[in-house]
């Protein structure tokens, strides 16, 4: 086991020797700046898109609030109460309601 550990230790050291720091290519730094610029452009165009979307959403909301909502706002379906409707129709049920259900007077 110890022998294997020693061999492994020397393998690490040999590996360090076998992999010296590589010489960067002359394009290394310009390419880093190109990537930085590309990211900056992408971020900026994304920001423009986001801003445009926000402006469009706000305009649409304003348009809906100012023109479309009042235009399509309907009158309520029921303008009268149930009792009023019955009274208008002169229904016998109406009499039942006002007399508290006592309809004997009517039969006389």
């Amino acid at each position: 086991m110890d022998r294997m550990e020693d061999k492994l230790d020397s393998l690490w050291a040999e590996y360090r020797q076998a992999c010296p720091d590589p010489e960067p290519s002359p394009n290394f730094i310009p390419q880093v700046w190109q990537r930085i610029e590309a990211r900056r452009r992408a971020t900026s165009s994304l920001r423009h898109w986001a801003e445009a979307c926000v402006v469009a959403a706000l305009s649409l909301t304003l348009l809906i609030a100012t023109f479309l909502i009042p235009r399509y706002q309907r009158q309520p379906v029921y303008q009268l109460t149930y009792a009023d409707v019955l009274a208008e129709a002169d229904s016998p049920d109406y009499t039942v309601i006002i007399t508290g259900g006592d309809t004997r007077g009517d039969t006389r």
Partner: protein
Amino acid sequence: MAVLIEFELIERARGGDESAFNQVLQAYRKRILGTIARLIGKPEDVEDVGQEVFLRLYYSLDQLRTPEVFEPWLYRLTVNAAYDYLRRQRRRHESRMSDLSEQQVMMADASAGGKRSKEDADHTRVREQLQSLLDKVSTEDRVLLVLKEVEGLSLKELEKIYKVNENALKVRLFRARQRVLKAYESES
């Protein structure tokens, strides 16, 4: 790790001074590329990963608390970029190998071996031996061991990179060493 630049230069780069950042780039590129080369073991991809490290550095430099912690922080960015690369490679390698028959894999290996014959034979053998050994352990073990055993970082330096205490690091290192040793024994 010896500090290669003045703290004042890091401060200026952090404040958005592009010429200062360029100087940081010039000072550290060789060291960072060397670390990446030993971490990933693929010379053809070293510059690509290195550029990714400096790109991340540029866009996160404003998050650096003080210039004193610049180097461990740069190492952390390097380690993270190497992790990302190694994980990507592992996934790609698995899918590529599953597409090829065993005979095709052997032929590909033999042809790659022929092309490498011009290189320094000893160095190539050592690199391949250690890379094949490291391929048998997890990416986390691989990176930790290379930083400790090959890069020669101290426990104190590793503590700053990994943001864990010394005891936890010792345990992780011990376990990683045991796993590599086991792989080494089964290989030899």
